[in-house]
């Protein structure tokens, strides 16, 4: 039997990649344990978790994230589906629009939003609810590239047209087609888009600090980083752990029923 050759170069690059990722994290973690002079302790974590602002800002950002996800999915999933089904020529236009948030800096976006929605008929910044609505709207724009790509890739993996027509011929209307045929088969794609959006909203600083200030998690993390050295390191590790927790949850939910995500067609 032929002996398998070990690819040393391959392993070297993997090692470099893993080190690049883990060494700073290990360093940060080690640093976060040094809040008590002369010994390693979880004091910094204790302080962070006991700070009522941590829970308050984190809950607020999670809430904004969930609202952004719901609103984005309701807007983007049917739009991308319809473009794939009936208006395929518009797909490049949609793709171009989805890239705009990468071109327009968040600071420009937030100034524009404040200017437009601070007076006149759509005066949203005068009330707490209005500001939150504006924040969700801004996050929807920022999430557009990720959400669009996730949904578009998911739709590319299924035979959208045949599934739609099969459902139509069986008497289904658009609502049934979307919610019982198309979306269940996009489960993994929708969840990955949702996760990226949530992670982005939790850590977002620029827009949150101008619209809601210290109510959001991003500005809170920034302030902790400025004032409390060890706590900022522990906060970084906590947010990292929470991120992984969300990945785990999404992986768990995303497994779905057998057969979901299978591509239809000849075998």
């Amino acid at each position: 039997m032929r002996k398998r050759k070990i690819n040393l170069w391959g392993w070297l690059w993997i090692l470099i990649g893993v080190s690049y990722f883990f060494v700073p994290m290990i360093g940060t973690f080690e640093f976060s344990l040094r809040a008590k002079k002369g010994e390693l302790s979880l004091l910094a974590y204790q302080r962070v978790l006991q700070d009522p602002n941590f829970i308050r800002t984190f809950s607020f950002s999670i809430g904004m994230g969930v609202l952004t996800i719901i609103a984005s999915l309701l807007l983007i999933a049917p739009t991308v589906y319809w473009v794939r089904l009936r208006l395929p020529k518009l797909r490049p236009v949609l793709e171009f629009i989805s890239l705009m948030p990468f071109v327009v800096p968040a600071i420009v976006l937030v100034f524009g939003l404040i200017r437009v929605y601070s007076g006149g008929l759509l005066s949203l910044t005068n009330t707490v609810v209005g500001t939150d609505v504006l924040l969700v709207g801004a996050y929807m724009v920022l999430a557009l590239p990720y959400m669009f790509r996730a949904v578009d890739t998911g739709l590319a993996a299924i035979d959208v047209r045949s599934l739609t027509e099969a459902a139509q011929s069986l008497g289904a209307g658009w609502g049934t087609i979307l919610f019982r045929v198309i979306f269940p088969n996009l489960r993994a794609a929708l969840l990955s888009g949702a996760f990226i959006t949530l992670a982005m909203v939790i850590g977002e600083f620029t827009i949150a600090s101008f619209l809601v200030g210290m109510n959001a998690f991003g500005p809170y993390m920034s302030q902790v980083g400025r004032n409390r050295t060890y706590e900022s390191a522990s906060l970084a590790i906590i947010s990292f752990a929470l991120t992984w927790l969300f990945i785990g949850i999404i992986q768990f939910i995303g497994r779905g029923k057998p057969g979901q995500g299978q591509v239809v067609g000849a075998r």
Partner: protein
Amino acid sequence: MSFLTLTDISKTFKDTAAVADFNLGVTRGEFVSFLGPSGCGKTTTLRMIAGFETPTTGSITINGEDVTYRPPNRRNVGMVFQSYALFPNMTVADNIGFGLKVTKRPAAEIRKTVQEMLDVIHLPELGARYPYQLSGGQQQRVALARALAIHPQVLLLDEPLSALDAKIRVELRSEIRRIQQELGITTVYVTHDQEEALSLSDRIVVMNAGRVEQIDAPFRIYNYPSTGFVASFIGQLNLLPVVVQDASAGAVACGGQIIRTSLSIQTANGEAVRLAIRPEEIKVAPAGAEAASDNRLNARVEGVTFLGAIVRVRAAVDGLAEGPLLAVDLFNDRQLVLPKPGEQVALVFPPHACWVAEHSET
């Protein structure tokens, strides 16, 4: 009276006419196939019946009701797709029961119908499986059951066997015909496979470039093609260059050898036309053999190909140096003496087996 009627149907995509002047009446319980090459408009016509395309002109009626502009989900027409289009997130039973759930039938009725349909397609145990756990043939049976479960007025099948391998295709072909006859459902079947169309259909609509070439029973389509396209598209056909010798007597000359047809020819004497003969109508006899009242062409064997049930001989007709090789199909049997390449033979066929193809360029 026709159950499904298509009257003066045409469909134009921008400047391209996909279907033109299409007229068809299908009686209740009839099995009609649309047959033609790719791009001939057969699928477009089927999609207009299903409601996925709207005709540019004309009307479609089912059971006397005009459905031309009715959306597909309100036509009660079952459709089977080439790609199966089973819902991947649902089990086989859920797929079959989908149409009934949509129309809010009672759960007990849905369960009963699903089991009946699983029995009809001979897969009674597979209700709990997911589509990806089935073979291609099984998936297509489920797709058929799903389309039938809603008790559609018309069943439409769009090249349902194209994605399957040859053996499964033949098996499933018989299954489709059996189920269609058992249920007596009016069926329109689209295919580019002439064997499928000939074996399944009560009538075949042969289409070419968006137009109907001939609508007839399979026997007549094959033996009495009404246009040159149908003659050349259905089965194998030899087209020999000949010159009309005596139009009223139906005599032509091929490389100096006289051939008689059973009908008079509608072309002037001396005109160059093409003579059509099916390969299976020709017999190979030893050179110099008498042929009584049959036509007899001297030829030289150029090649012999063994195809299993038949043996195809290709022969060059004497006096036709530049002409095409004539294909002759011999039914295989163990005693068959195969002619050898280079051997001189006589090709024998009766006058009624050949006809002048008017559209000789096809």
